[in-house]
């Protein structure tokens, strides 16, 4: 027997009690709104192709990085609005805000667009965190206010000059892509400073960072995608969902092409999702929110280990 304390949970038992209360609150919130709770497989034969999200593979398939594809198949099958609280897994390092296994809340609202869904995110955060109503600002306006340039007009040379002037990178800016530069400026110069008083909902991300969101019909430079930030933390990511099967297939294929040119393995795209979109996904908006981070904010925790029973290092 060793005297090691590694067997013990890293979260105080009181924090685990707060986690249970939070889950009860979330379930009550959706139950009152007639949103159906569902479960979908954690283990799948398919995986995300997203260039910046790496799945954990097992001898039987892949652990999900989010329940998005299966939930969209339920929507196409006529489920109506649904929510899920589940574990998601990403091949990532651990950090202050990261554990390779984490709890995700994901929900889809039939008939909503991203603005109506943002209003619901706002309502949920007010209930759970007892915080002030969310502020709303476009990605473009946020850059203009915080770093004094228009991200929809700036080109790569401009961004490279900007990060050089601010001495942000250790390496050469020319080795970074346009989107990586925009994102690093956002993460270092903007994210730590926004949403200090009330959560902020940022919408209208550049179309090049659309992921699974629709392209805006009025301004094709932006996607109908939003993110929630509070106290400098990325809390949620939502879309007015792409429902075009051909476009979805093209995005999967171009992701896999990017993967091949960046020493990453091709991922088996979820053909069932493509078929479901072809059969018809109702107009809907969906959002994923990190439950561990939400609990951290509620408790004022400074490290994710404080809200997890056993982080990966002890799992």
């Amino acid at each position, binding site marked *: 027997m060793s005297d090691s304390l590694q067997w013990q949970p890293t979260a105080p038992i009181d924090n685990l009690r707060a986690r249970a209360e939070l889950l009860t609150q979330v379930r009550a919130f959706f139950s009152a709104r007639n949103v159906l709770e569902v479960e979908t497989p954690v283990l799948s034969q398919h995986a995300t192709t997203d260039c910046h999200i790496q799945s954990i593979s097992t001898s039987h398939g892949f652990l999900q990085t989010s329940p998005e594809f299966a939930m969209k198949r339920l929507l196409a099958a006529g489920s109506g609005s649904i929510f899920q609280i589940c574990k998601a897994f990403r091949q990532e390092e651990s950090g202050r805000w990261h554990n390779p296994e984490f709890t995700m809340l994901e929900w889809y609202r039939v008939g909503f667009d991203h603005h109506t869904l943002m209003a619901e995110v706002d309502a949920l955060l007010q209930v759970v965190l007892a915080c002030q109503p969310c502020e709303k600002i476009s990605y473009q306006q946020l850059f203009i206010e915080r770093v004094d340039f228009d991200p929809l007009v700036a080109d790569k040379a401009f961004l490279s000059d900007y990060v050089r002037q601010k001495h942000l*990178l*250790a390496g050469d800016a020319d080795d970074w892509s346009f989107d*990586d530069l925009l994102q*690093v400026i956002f993460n*270092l110069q903007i994210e730590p400073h926004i949403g200090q008083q009330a959560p902020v909902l940022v919408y209208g991300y550049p179309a090049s960072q659309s992921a699974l969101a629709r392209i805006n019909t009025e301004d094709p430079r932006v996607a109908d995608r939003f993110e929630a930030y509070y106290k400098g933390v*990325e809390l949620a990511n939502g879309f007015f969902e792409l429902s075009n099967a051909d476009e979805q297939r093209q995005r999967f294929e171009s992701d896999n092409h990017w993967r091949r040119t960046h020493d990453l393995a091709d991922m088996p795209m979820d053909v069932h999702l493509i078929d479901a979109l072809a059969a018809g996904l109702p107009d809907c908006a969906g959002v994923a929110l990190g439950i561990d981070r939400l609990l951290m904010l509620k408790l004022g925790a400074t490290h994710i280990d404080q809200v997890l029973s056993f982080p990966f290092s002890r799992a």
Partner: protein
Amino acid sequence: MLDGEPCNILENEYVKPGKGQAFNRVKIRKLISGKVLEKTFRSGESVEGADVLDTELAYLYTDGEFYHFMNNETFEQIAADEKAVGENVKWLVENDVCTITLWNGTPISVTPPNFVELEITETDPGLKGDTAGTGGKPATLSTGAVVRVPLFVQTGEVIKVDTRSGEYASRAQK
């Protein structure tokens, strides 16, 4: 190496947006000028390694200004200054073999063994049978280091500490 100076990493924060490139926000100390700065590395990005030499030397004593170490095979001695030892001074135990990093023959950093054994000089007496508390209690060690220990550990006992995390590992084997 950064701007021609060997550096060591003080803090390394992992940043990964939900949809986007992962990177590391790294706090670096330049070992010659002592300047501390923050830089961003893309995950997997590489930098030129500093042409430094690691040697295994036993800690002897301090004269107040320098910390003296000795090569146990050649008996050659070397003195490291306070800047090179830094915060690791609290983990220096006589005769423990430390890793001394030399750059152009000068010690620029001192890394203690991963585990050191130190005596507890002061800690609150824990109540017997009180195993419910998971937080433990603070204990001051003979070098002045303060670590959290389980309640059953008492003043005068020798404990094993992980110098990388500064955390209690176990009681020392008797």
